[in-house]
């Protein structure tokens, strides 16, 4: 019961700040709202018995990627965005259409699942559940080892690519 209350609170936090992230016109505040949203999401994972996923969510997204976002925004100094309200009818139309389609999909999925959302995991979480480090490692480095290695090669390629592009820029 307690876990359910915490799950709902953190999920609400994540959703509200995701909304603020979209609505606010201030780039730095937008990034920070996303940080709060990610932390809320991470806490939701913890209440669902997946602390490892939750902590990775914070380390990778909130801690590394968004700091770099913030870095770029601060150096570009984009704190005065040009006011463009209703200036782009095509984008506004397509955006609205997309929102309606997404809402319909979400409603359909929720209706398909029958009743309300499943109840949050019990506390203490099962040590064999997938969210715990040991069990996750067993699956990742056993059953899915080939996929794991393939992704790491892909990341390495991206890393080398970024390096090549950056070098070319500096030589010109």
């Amino acid at each position: 019961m307690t876990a359910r209350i915490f799950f709902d609170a953190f999920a609400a936090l994540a959703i509200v700040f995701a909304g603020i992230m979209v609505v606010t016109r201030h780039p730095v505040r937008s990034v920070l709202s996303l940080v709060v949203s990610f932390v809320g999401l991470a806490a939701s994972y913890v209440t669902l018995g997946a602390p490892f996923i939750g902590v990775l969510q914070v380390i990778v997204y909130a801690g590394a990627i968004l700091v770099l976002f913030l870095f770029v925004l601060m150096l570009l100094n984009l704190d005065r965005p040009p006011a463009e309200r209703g200036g782009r009818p095509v984008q506004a139309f397509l955006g609205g259409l997309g929102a309606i389609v997404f809402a319909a999909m979400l409603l359909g999925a929720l209706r398909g699942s029958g009743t309300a959302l499943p109840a949050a995991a019990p506390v203490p979480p099962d040590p064999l559940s997938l969210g715990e480090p040991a069990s996750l490692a067993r699956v990742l480095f056993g059953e899915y080892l080939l996929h794991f290695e393939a992704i790491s090669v892909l990341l390495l390629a991206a890393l080398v690519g970024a390096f090549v592009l950056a070098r070319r820029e500096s030589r010109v």
Partner: protein
Amino acid sequence: MTLADWGIVLARVVLPPLILPAIVIPLVWYERRVAALIQDRHGPNRVGPFGLLQSPADILKLFMKEEVVPSSVDKLLYYLAPAVAVTAALATFAVIPFGATLEAGGRRIPLIGADVSIGVLYVFAITSISVYGIVLAGWSSNDKYSLMGGIRSSAQIISYELAMTTAAAGVILAAASFRLTDVIAMQEGTFFGFIPRWNVFLQPLGFLIFFTATFAETNRLPFDLPEAEAELVAGYHTEYSAMHFGSFFLAEYVNVIVSSALTTTLYFGGWSLPGFHPTGPLGVAASVLIFALKTAFFVTVFVWVRWTLPRFRYDQLMRLGWKALLPLALVNLFWAAALEMLRARG
């Protein structure tokens, strides 16, 4: 859960964040006295016995001082930044075991905020959040010195986080767990009957890298480039005054304590000592005292280094982090893995 259980949980969660700032008060006095000793002068010795009341007086002053806020700051983020810095610093302590398990009234109370399966990772997650306090302070102040300090700090913390995490991975590998109570449990016992079974003797290189990186993570000399007075006035907190400035100060000292506690836990056996099996309330109190003394030792090293080593230049800092510490941390990881294979073969 009964009301008493809730009370115990509340105490474990709430007490450390209340006690840590209280320890900072004498710590500031201690640092100033040790600095004076190193520089062959007296240090604060007028207010109270041995000058002990100097710090409380200074903090009172910080609370009473007029707050000067520049008109061009981003108000929301300007006030948010010190809060983020202090919160992140205090939150780290939640997963560090500061004593043995207390058995009282039929209950087992582990002296730790939360004994989670992801302890070490949680510490790194909070460290990565703590960057926001400094970056936001630098940006929202709308001042070039602050901004430079904020940018330097984030680049520095991200760079040294890699070496720190990789060094700690050696310990995690040996303990086969992220849980800090497991890390302490594996360090009980001795080698050859007299050397404590501490990780520092197994992975001395890892310990050196980890401890060096904590200096960079806490923005302390010789890595205090985010606030280098000679270049940046005061760096990221240039535009702060009164207790908002004091908050950054508090966060720095809490970070020093927490880093020392973490070093103690990962490499020096935490609250344990060889041949010491705490029983009863007195034994548990002794374990807390052992933990406090070990931590105090590393806090002293922090102070000692600050008044001994000069500041690095920024390119030296980056070269050290990426070209020396990170490769060495990888070497340490292979070393730890080799040790583990040898142990597994018996």
